[in-house]
């Protein structure tokens, strides 16, 4: 039976699926529920968990397999891994999330107004990294976690598209 390790919105879930025609029995962190899923479109499905109804939109974002789940008016970021691989990785002391975030990409397209850090510099969570002008506004991009800047790929005056490489951390 397929078993997954899912991180949704920062919370960890151990999920095992048992597939039957038209439905699944799903064991989530040890609790068993009945799930029916009906495809609505490429990215959307109607999911029933013990008859509770959820309209879910799932999209792959970025190249690290991160998913954006839109449900009940909320955006939830999630990653999914084969459970056993995740266990092995854990034993080896690696974090899926940190591995993912060493490369920082432009969250939006715009013009770089200012780069506030240099390679080699240590940054704290919340520290301003750079300023991008987009939609007539200055947007200060801050560090999501403490890290050390390895490389900076942009400079003042450059135009970037969403997803362009901005800097790398280590």
């Amino acid at each position, binding site marked *: 039976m397929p078993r997954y390790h899912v991180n949704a*919105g920062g919370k960890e879930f151990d*999920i095992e699926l048992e597939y039957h025609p038209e439905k699944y029995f799903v064991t*989530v962190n040890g609790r068993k529920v009945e799930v029916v*899923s009906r*495809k609505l479109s490429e990215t959307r499905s109607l999911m029933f968990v013990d008859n509770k109804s959820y309209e879910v939109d*799932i999209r792959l974002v970025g190249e690290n397999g991160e998913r954006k789940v839109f449900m009940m008016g*909320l*955006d939830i970021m999630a990653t999914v891994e084969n459970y056993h691989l995740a266990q092995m990785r854990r034993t080896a002391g690696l974090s899926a999330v940190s591995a993912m975030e060493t490369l920082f990409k432009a969250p939006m397209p715009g013009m770089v107004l200012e780069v506030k850090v240099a390679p080699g510099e240590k940054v704290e969570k919340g520290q301003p990294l750079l300023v991008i002008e987009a939609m007539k506004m200055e947007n200060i*991009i801050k560090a999501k976690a403490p890290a050390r800047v390895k490389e900076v790929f942009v400079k003042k005056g450059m135009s970037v598209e969403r997803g362009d490489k901005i800097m790398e951390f280590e």
Partner: protein
Amino acid sequence: MTEKIKKILIANRGEIAVRIIRACRDLGIESAAVYSECDKTAYHVRMADEAYYIGPSPSTESYLVHERIIETARKCKADAVHPGYGFLAENPSFAEKCLEAGIIFIGPKPETIRLLGDKLLARDTALKAGLPVVPGRDIGGLDIASALAAATDIGFPVLVKAAGGGGGKGMRVVTSEDLFAESLKSAANEAASAFGDSRVFLEKYLPRPRHIEIQILADTHGNCIYLGERECSIQRRHQKVIEESPSPVVTEALREQMGRAAVSIARSAGYVGAGTVEFLVDHDLSFYFLEVNTRLQVEHPVTEMVTGLDLVKEQVFIAEGAPLKYIQEDIKLLGHAIECRIYAEKPEEGFVPSTGTLTHYRIPAGPGVRVDSGVLLNSQIPIFYDPMIAKLIVWGKDRRETIDRTRRALQEYRVGGVDSTIGFHLTIMDNEKFIRGDLSTRFLEEEYPDNDYHRLDGEVLEKAAIAVALDSFINERKIILSQTSSHNRPACGWVTYHRKNSLRQFRGSR
């Protein structure tokens, strides 16, 4: 005296252009849209009766070019130009050029726009009209030492504000003497680059004021009325995100006081059209004049919902020279209305804008719900303009019902392909202080200091996790899916149904 307008050119885009086109439809007036390169198939272009290309995507090369717009208005024989909000709405020289070209500018006279657009002159006008203003000082011409003396006189914290414009630009809160000189300089620099006017002035900083504003209507015959208030205290970066009418704290008596003050400054300024007089209201309910917006506001629909009036139609009637159809006593506020501005932004990252294509878009509906959208399914959210997707406006009998309906409508909203502020608004609708009506312009920074709007409970996360696991499984086993999907297809035709049934009966009879 009155002359019917037959065609209006709308010098704007997005939801406000669509809003104005709808009013034109209702009035039987033809509407002409203008559009830039990236708005070639935008919603306002599809909605309008006519549409004209005016230039490349950046607004400085299209929506802000006076000449292109006036030339287009002439070409299509528009009687009037409606500027919406933003862009050219508060630009006195554009208004002047319209008048010179013989085209009605739907808004106040150019001299009124000029007078009230200068924050210092507006402050003087308010003082002369007998309005309370926040203690402050014009520091034009003063050297830094005298300016500092003035600031000390007012008392720290003090607010440095640009004279030439608003929207939070050229504005600094200075908490202590030693930061004063630097803040003053940077505010003046920012003001210069934003408005081409480096003048700044000082105001006492109110720590937790409410932002409450009065909507007014003034005709060309000297009549002026107020249409109640809007509370717009929920702001980020000095920009409103949630507005409501009436305010939870405004009593009938305070409304009349503020309303009369608003009418009084409007009369002093020779105001004509729809306008908004903004006030700060302190915790003791004393109020101070802030500024006048000489245009339709983004948040005008909440006033429409509680008064039953169509403000764009009223603007047109006033522009045609008609006297107001209502006197002050006719205006009654009924029920309660809330507006949520739905932006393509990431609230958790300090509201950074998000651009892209709306791959999924479904607006909420049902009792009490109005949506003023600027987009459609598959629309682009371009980088060049304000990233607003739509305004959700909800009416209810009282504030409680309105909040409940707003929450329901937000849950029904579907936005895919870009980030949106829907989850942010849901968080606010569940905030106890918001529900109690305990608001101030510092509400967001006090309640969510780290932009921590995304309060996901474990229940929802568990469902998301299940969905993601299922999705992975299905994608890994596409073949199984394609078999089951035929099971899932509903049998909705007669013949299919009868065939299935006869098959069933046939099997049963063996």
